[in-house]
């Protein structure tokens, strides 16, 4: 008797739910060991993280605040990953979206009707994110330049552009040298519904469902799946691969750009330090844990946001580093990846007599 792994044709439904769940538990366990090493009680720590993130409505609104950009970037990144286009530039796309929304809010307001300021800021933020993602997209499609590196390098460029602006040209003249732009006019503020949680939440959730529908029920979504799984077959069937990839990348970037526009119009109301919080990187974890499913991304984003908020909480209450939450997040992907062997392959037991044993 021996064991072999056989490639599955479809992803097992049970594994789809089970693998992320087990991965999360394994991550809790491994981080728990780290906590014990640093003389902290893991149960107490996780308890206060949970209370900090989900223990009260006020705390939960803070979790939602962080979940919104994670949903958008996670869905965006997930779309690109479906095409095996490794867009790890969500951070830069988010920042560039935020910068462009700031530009609209600060300099266009006098020329626009009041009701139009916010929609234009959000629209331009999304377009900016799409354009920022288009750079690696076009380079990949036309010249086959590695998109991982280009998109990643552009994160640094976008962050430095933002810095150059809020330290330099756009600095608030009345800010006494504080690095940041002027406060936006009220017309460019995105309404909040509770605490700092803003209406962007509904947009993000809605977009997640729309994305699911588009991927599963439209021709374009079908093409995206085909190009991602088997580009050769897609080509034979007449799918324009370059066009499909590029359109998906633009949408992927637009999601992150919108997340950045939300951050400046709803949370900070200005461009300042702290726009690049690492959401674009956490988005990779969100997308992978949700197995690139946009609806699942919504829920995973809330969980990941909870880890971030909980991490801040244990810093305040227990003096543990806030990076705690990030360590927990970083741990999740390892068991996830190890588990993917079981979602992609099935274990087959072959007895000696079976003719397959000669394989």
């Amino acid at each position, binding site marked *: 008797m021996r064991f072999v792994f056989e490639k599955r044709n479809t992803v097992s439904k049970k594994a789809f739910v089970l693998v992320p769940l087990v991965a999360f538990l394994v991550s809790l366990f491994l981080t728990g060991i780290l906590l014990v090493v640093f003389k902290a009680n893991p149960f107490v720590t996780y308890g206060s993280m949970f209370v900090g993130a989900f223990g009260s409505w006020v705390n939960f609104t803070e979790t939602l605040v962080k979940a919104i950009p994670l949903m958008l970037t996670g869905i965006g990144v997930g779309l690109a990953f479906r095409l095996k286009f490794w867009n790890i530039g969500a951070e830069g796309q988010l920042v560039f979206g935020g910068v462009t929304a700031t530009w609209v809010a600060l300099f266009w307001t006098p020329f626009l009707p009041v009701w139009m300021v916010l929609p234009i800021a959000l629209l331009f933020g999304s377009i900016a994110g799409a354009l920022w993602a288009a750079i690696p997209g076009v380079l990949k499609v036309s010249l086959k330049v590695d998109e991982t590196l280009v998109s990643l390098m552009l994160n640094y460029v976008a962050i*430095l552009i933002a810095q150059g602006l809020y330290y*330099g040209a756009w600095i608030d003249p009345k800010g006494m040298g504080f690095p940041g732009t002027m406060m936006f006019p009220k017309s460019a503020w995105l309404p909040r519904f509770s605490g700092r949680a803003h209406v962007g939440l509904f947009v993000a959730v809605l977009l997640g469902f729309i994305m699911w529908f588009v991927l599963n029920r439209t021709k374009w979504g079908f093409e995206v799946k085909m190009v991602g799984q088997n580009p050769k077959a897609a080509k034979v069937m007449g799918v324009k691969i370059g066009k499909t990839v590029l359109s998906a990348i633009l949408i992927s970037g637009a999601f992150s750009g919108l997340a950045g526009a939300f951050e400046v119009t709803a949370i900070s109301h200005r461009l300042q330090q702290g726009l690049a919080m690492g959401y674009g990187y956490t988005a990779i974890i969100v997308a*992978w844990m949700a197995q690139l499913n946009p609806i699942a991304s919504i829920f995973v984003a809330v969980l990941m946001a909870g880890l971030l908020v909980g991490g801040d909480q244990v810093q305040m209450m227990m003096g543990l580093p806030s990076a705690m939450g990030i360590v927990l997040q970083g741990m999740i992907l390892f068991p996830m990846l190890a588990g993917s062997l079981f979602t992609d392959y099935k274990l087959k037991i072959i007895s000696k007599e079976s003719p397959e044993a000669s394989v």
Partner: protein
Amino acid sequence: MIALITSILAITLRAGTSLIYATIGEIYTERSGILNLGLEGMMLMGAVSAFATVYYTGSLGLALIVSMLTGIVLSSLHAFLSITMRANQVVSGLSITLFGTGLASFLGQRLGPASNGHYLIGLIGEKFTPFAIPGLSKIPVIGAVFSQDILTYIVYLIIPVAWFYMYKTKNGLNLRAVGESPQTADAMGINVYRTRYIYTIVGGTLVALGGAHLSLSYAPGWTDNITGGRGWIVIALVIFSMWNPSRAIWGALLFGGINAIQFRLQATGTTISAPFLNMLPYIVTIVVLVLMTWFETLNKKVGAPAALAVPYMRGEK
């Protein structure tokens, strides 16, 4: 003028050292067919573990050993996921980077002494200092090559050794065979899995040493993101060097040179604002990458291992 060129060359080599360690490490890993995008996280972990060790023990040698062990652990993890578990290598590498970045930042806030609020940031420890080689360091301009710290001197040795091993030894031949065609290598009796494990781990060890050079010599101490994207730049440098260890020096000199020029410009005071000056390495990376890819399509062959990032399974085509 000569003094200026000498000083730029000296800083270039200092800044390039960590890049060369990591580039040669990643060349070896990729030559075996494994793509490791975890470099940024591994360099950060190498840097933080080295600095914490030197802070408490005062021993630079021990610091190097600890950072190498860190590299071994993290690259073994990548090797296990991508070789044994056949996970997607891009995602596994990204995970190492995300995890390494988070853990390094966590340790930087936790490993320090209570008097510093457990922070490592802002502490001073032992560091590698440059020393001149008598005679050679007196040569105009070239003298800069011989007024470096020990880790840079080791680099001068590692480059030819890495080249010789890869192209002139049986092991090197086997390594390249595994990266080009694991099926053929397997048929020739080479253990593909073992070869990939070995060079992924050897590579990771060198990468962590690159990180250690940052916290022990180039920018002594610990700050979050001390690497500033060097781990990613190295992945571009591997392409730039066409997977040949002897060419690793050029990319490292280019990027070390950019660092040196930034240094000089900022020191002399310039009208270009700092953020825009700091963009230079990242933009140059993109330009280099585009040029190299374009060059590759013109010449057909640059040297990327044919089986790079393709998991191998015996008996599966």
